[in-house]
């Protein structure tokens, strides 16, 4: 979705003051997140799982969110869905779904949107389905919350959906229990459940991580096909860049709860600009690469979310921090778009960055 | 004896030659209930020695509860004081204790019989004549044969293991006679002869002057052979009294209703005021107390008194206390001092214990003055004719005389004291408390007491009542107790001071008294026909035992009873040590 957020930086002051750095959402944005902060007060301190995150997403488009484990991807998606346990979380910023503000909205309002306007697919389909109810019942239930239809119609709908997500003999399998399904089928059923009310936004949080490689591809294909059919806005969360490479229109790279790079998929893949993204690319297995050649994981570990370094959160691990100097350690880099529609948060100046990219990174990928 | 609820067996074998006249002659002293003292003011002990709320009003149902079960409702198979009190409602014997408060009940009268038994010259043959017009509940006449049958059936201890063995041992049964069931058709004329329907003659193996007492026991209530159902008879004993069984649920409940064939004209003693009785078994005792206090229940039937918890409540609340009675029972809680255990073979060492022990501590261990009893200074409880009024080992406030105790110790050559073990029954917290009281008090004069508990059921057979064990285990003190079957010196003393009842294999209640002169006095009393002289003889026995310091008398037992809220005509029948169940009425 190239024309979405990254391309539109018509700033209003309200948004520009935020570290999120994105301006007023474009008119076609179905979902726009601005400067989202999700903090969990715990006994050890405040866990800043998401701390300044912004993006836009239009209907029919797919956003890929990538980042290491613990970078706040799931927290982000649960925040959009309003699924955090009430009382355990502090949310700030803005999440607008179809123009409706969700941050601070009454729980009941958000509940009414869940399933109907936005739906979610989880990583582990086995644990995400209730073991004591049949797959059909669980889909029927999802359908009936928002649609006052008789059980029979809901069941027909469920069978239809199961068929559409590629379950063979759906009228039989509809009465099976989750444990009677294979992993891939379960995820298909989860997708059917998520799609039961024809949602406008579908969030898939690592939908394929628990599946084996061939099934992964099938599921991703399915999501792509369905998106086309349903014309939904889709967020695919993954720490595997490969997954989003084929699927996403835009890509948001997260690090320590923040957006560090945000651009079109093409932009991120072909001209990544942030040192962290470079690291991700380098550690990504590629088919066109000799597997024995190099797989270079990023050195070090992400910072504790309770005490994030004051400057750039990536600075302890960044090979280029030295070139910038003190700013990397003391000053939080602004999320800005040096070139149109390609946002990033890094102190490196544009020329140097381009140089590093073309001299050191690109040749080695 | 081991179970305070249980009457004791009269050791008929030891009765030896008892002359005929004695007990028969002693009747006729005190009056019946007609001229008894009465009161209508609710007060502590208002029904003890007096009739509380006298009334002739008929009607209502009296509710009774038992924390356990009676051994049987079959009069031929029961040996509890309270069941003997109760069974008079649906059974009558040839003789009965007068239904009267205070000493009134010590008098015997004919019940089914027109008077007391007529003994032969040597008191070996006893003849009774039945009143006329006596009927069972089914309308059939009660004859002498029904009494004979009743007694012969209870000889079958296979079927009736609970009944006492008085008759087995006392009467001249044919050889190998095994009772009405197993020796069916055998002529028992040698033991019981019924020349006609209204005459019954008992032939005894030995003279026994107390035979009339036996005739008061439920075992001699008539049973119609045609209606006898053996072990199942208890579900519906055929009544000869004013009430009969209406319902019976084993282990739970039975109810009595009026017996239409009972004729009050033949029965001047039983008032038969209520229309019925309801008897619940296995009721939680705390609940029994609460329900009596609340007025939901009339009688705690076993007559053992309230629980310690209720006792506190009753004594501290004047309203409740006014509903309580505190009768003395013919029971002594005592401690045996075996003379076979060194150095207690020395009288002075025993005397040291007699002096050193604190009587008030004894009383406290047993629950205090109300639930425990009165401090005993000799053996025979005051209820028993001939009981002594002498303190053999006096001390300031009954607290024990340590100076005298030390002197005694010096005299016996153990000025620094000695070590002994005190036996008690594990199941009895009071006895445990007693052993600890002995331990504490005797330590003051250097006598080291080690309390040691034993299982109740083996206490006499294996441990404290087993002489070799006592000796080998240095048991110098043993918690003990005794209650009389009926209130006379013989009934009280014979089993606990006669050395001839001691069995070397164990099982005797006499643990410590081995005095030939006492044995001689017992035999002498058994043949003494003069009441006053006989009572004096029992007093002498008591004195000898006390002087010789082989029994430490503790408390003469008392029970704290609470009267049902709406009961009339309530009084304690001393013969049973609890309320008389035949005279109660409802407001």
């Amino acid at each position, binding site marked *: 979705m190239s024309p979405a957020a990254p391309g539109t930086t018509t700033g209003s002051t309200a948004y520009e003051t935020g570290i999120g750095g994105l301006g007023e959402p474009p008119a076609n944005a179905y979902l726009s997140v601005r400067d989202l902060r999700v903090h969990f007060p715990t006994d050890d301190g405040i866990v800043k799982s998401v701390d300044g995150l912004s993006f836009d997403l239009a209907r029919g488009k797919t956003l890929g969110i990538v980042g290491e484990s613990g970078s706040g991807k799931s927290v982000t998606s649960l925040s959009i869905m309003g699924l955090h346990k009430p009382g355990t979380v502090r949310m700030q910023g803005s999440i607008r779904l179809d123009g409706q503000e969700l941050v601070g909205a009454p729980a009941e309002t958000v*509940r009414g949107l*869940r399933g109907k306007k936005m*739906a979610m697919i989880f990583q582990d389909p086995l644990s995400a389905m209730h073991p*004591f109810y049949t797959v059909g019942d669980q889909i029927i*239930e999802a359908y009936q919350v928002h649609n006052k239809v008789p059980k029979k119609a809901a069941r027909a709908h469920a069978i239809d959906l199961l068929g559409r997500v590629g379950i063979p003999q759906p009228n039989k399998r509809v009465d099976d229990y989750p444990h009677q399904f294979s992993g891939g089928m379960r995820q298909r059923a989860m997708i059917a*459940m998520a799609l039961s009310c024809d949602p406008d936004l579908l969030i898939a949080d690592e939908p394929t991580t628990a599946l084996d490689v061939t099934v992964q591809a099938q599921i991703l294909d399915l999501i792509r096909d369905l998106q086309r059919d349903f014309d939904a806005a889709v967020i695919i969360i993954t720490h595997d860049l490969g997954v989003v490479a084929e699927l996403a229109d835009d890509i948001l790279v997260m690090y320590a709860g923040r957006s560090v790079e945000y651009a079109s998929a093409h932009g991120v893949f072909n001209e990544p600009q942030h040192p962290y993204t470079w690291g991700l690319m380098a550690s990504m297995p590629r088919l066109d690469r000799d597997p024995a050649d190099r797989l270079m994981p990023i050195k070090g570990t992400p910072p504790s979310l309770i005490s994030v370094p004051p400057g750039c959160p990536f600075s302890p691990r960044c090979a280029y921090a030295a070139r910038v100097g003190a700013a990397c350690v003391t000053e939080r880099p602004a999320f800005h778009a040096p070139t149109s529609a390609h946002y990033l948060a890094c102190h490196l100046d544009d020329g140097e960055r381009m140089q590093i990219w073309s001299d050191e990174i690109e040749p080695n990928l | 004896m081991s179970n305070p609820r249980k009457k004791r067996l009269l050791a008929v074998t030891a009765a030896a030659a008892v002359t005929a006249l004695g007990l028969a002659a002693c009747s006729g002293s005190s009056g019946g209930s007609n001229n008894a003292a009465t009161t209508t003011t609710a007060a502590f002990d208002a029904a003890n020695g007096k009739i509380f709320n006298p009334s002739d009003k008929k009607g209502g149902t009296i509710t009774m509860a038992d924390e356990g079960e009676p051994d049987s409702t079959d009069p031929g198979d029961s040996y509890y004081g309270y069941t003997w009190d109760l069974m008079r409602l649906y059974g009558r014997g040839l003789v009965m204790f007068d239904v009267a408060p205070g000493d009134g009940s010590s008098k015997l009268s004919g019940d089914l019989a027109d008077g007391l038994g007529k003994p032969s010259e040597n008191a070996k043959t006893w003849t009774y004549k039945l009143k006329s017009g006596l009927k069972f509940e089914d309308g059939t006449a009660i004859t002498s044969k029904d009494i004979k049958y009743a007694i012969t059936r209870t000889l079958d201890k296979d079927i009736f293991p609970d009944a006492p063995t008085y008759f087995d041992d006392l009467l001249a049964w044919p050889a190998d006679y095994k009772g009405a069931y197993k020796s069916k058709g055998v002529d028992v004329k040698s033991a019981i002869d019924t020349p006609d329907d209204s005459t019954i003659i008992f032939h005894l193996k030995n003279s026994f002057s107390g035979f009339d007492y036996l005739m008061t026991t439920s075992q001699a209530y008539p049973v119609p052979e045609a209606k*006898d159902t053996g072990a199942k008879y208890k579900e519906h004993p055929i009544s000869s009294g004013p009430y009969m069984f209406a319902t019976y649920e084993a*282990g739970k409940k039975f109810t009595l209703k009026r017996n239409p064939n009972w004729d009050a004209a033949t029965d001047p003693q039983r008032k038969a005021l209520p229309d019925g009785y309801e008897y619940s078994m296995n009721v939680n005792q705390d609940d029994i107390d*609460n*329900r009596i206090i609340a007025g939901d229940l009339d009688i705690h039937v076993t007559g053992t008194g309230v629980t310690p918890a209720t006792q506190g409540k009753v004594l501290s609340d004047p309203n409740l206390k006014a509903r309580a009675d505190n009768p003395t029972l013919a029971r002594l809680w005592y401690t045996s001092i075996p003379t076979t255990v060194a150095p207690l073979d020395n009288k002075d060492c025993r005397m040291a214990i007699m002096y050193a022990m604190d009587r008030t501590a004894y009383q406290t261990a047993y629950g205090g003055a109300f639930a425990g009893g009165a401090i005993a200074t000799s053996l025979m409880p005051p209820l028993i004719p001939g009981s002594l009024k002498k303190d053999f080992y006096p001390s300031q406030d009954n607290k024990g005389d340590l100076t005298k105790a030390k002197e005694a110790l010096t005299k016996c050559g153990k000025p620094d004291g000695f070590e002994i073990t005190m036996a008690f029954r594990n199941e009895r917290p009071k006895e445990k408390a007693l052993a600890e009281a002995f331990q504490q008090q005797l330590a003051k004069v250097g006598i080291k007491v080690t309390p040691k508990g034993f299982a109740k059921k083996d206490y006499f057979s294996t441990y404290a009542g087993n002489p070799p064990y006592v000796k080998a285990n240095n048991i110098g003190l043993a918690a003990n107790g005794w209650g009389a079957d009926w209130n006379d010196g013989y009934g009280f003393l014979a089993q606990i001071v006669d050395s001839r009842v001691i069995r070397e294999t164990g099982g005797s209640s006499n643990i410590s008294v081995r005095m030939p002169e006492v044995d001689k006095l017992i035999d002498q009393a058994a043949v003494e026909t003069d009441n006053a002289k006989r009572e004096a003889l029992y007093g002498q026995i008591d004195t000898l035992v006390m002087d010789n310091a082989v029994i430490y008398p503790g408390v003469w037992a008392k029970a704290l009873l609470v009267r049902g809220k709406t009961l009339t005509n309530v009084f304690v029948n001393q013969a049973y040590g609890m309320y008389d169940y035949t005279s109660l009425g409802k407001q």
Partner: protein
Amino acid sequence: MAGPVSRGRPPDALPVLTYVIRRLIAAAMLLIVVSMIVFTIFYVFPRWAGATPETLATRYVGRTATAETVHLAAQRLGFYDPIWVQYWNWFKAIFVGSTYDMGTSIEHCPAPCLGYSFQSKTPVWPDLLDRAPVTFSLAAGASIIWLLFGVTVGVVSAVRKGSLFDRAAMTVALAGISLPIYFTGLVSLAVFSYALGWTAPGGSYTPLTTNPAQWAYSLLLPWITLSFLFSATYARFTRAGMLETMNEDYIRTARAKGLPSRTVTLKHGLRGALTPIVTVFGLDLGLLLGGAVLTEKTFSLNGLGKYTVDAIGNQDLPRILGVTLLAAFFIVFSNLVVDLLYAVIDPRVRTA
């Protein structure tokens, strides 16, 4: 017996049947083993401890019985037979009955003859039949109350974890668990029955078939007292289970569907937490059916529990043996039912 967790998997109809039959046979075997153990405890151990046939028999006769009476009783009770003969006679009687001499007649104790109490001179089995309705009534009423009450409180506490309600409920529950039933029972009797007169006094029981209203009235206080104890346990148990299930992924899914929180909590949360509750409930009920000892004793209810205590108090061996076997039967049976219920509740067990 296999616990509720370890079990075979019964898929289709026939295997289910064979599974049930297999379990039934195992249950029967277990009961036999239990009877042998109880028999050993009460008949063999005393012999090892030095008891003779006569000393064993003294429990069945008056305390003042003569040696001959005791000998007769020992003979009648079969105490002179070798122990395995005694056991076999007892065991056999369950299937073919037995006969007893009543003196005037020979009484036949028909199968299932669980022996004959020589203390009360009654056969044991009719006693048990007679007592069971009381215990069943007590258990049924109390279990309904505690299930409704305990589980509700547990669920609400879990949902409002840390709230005033939660803390108050858990404090009361702790009290409920710690207070012995003879205390709560006697206090509530004193207050509600005797002081206020609202409930029936101790010892009241009207059979359900006689008068249902009176039945409920007479058992109300025992029900409440007994269920107080269990409610407390179940509230805590349910709360813990709910807290755990409410963290499950499928709860998040349910919420993601936009289900109202009631549906999420009850249909998804409680249903998920149900398995351990049902397991414990089944076992508790099975245990209780064998006799609610303390409650029955406190309220003087003539159920199996009081029968057991009374039998033990009187050392009435045939009664002890009979009632223990019945209690064991209930436990084994409820275990079996729980296992089968497990398959009803959890389709993974049913169809794995």
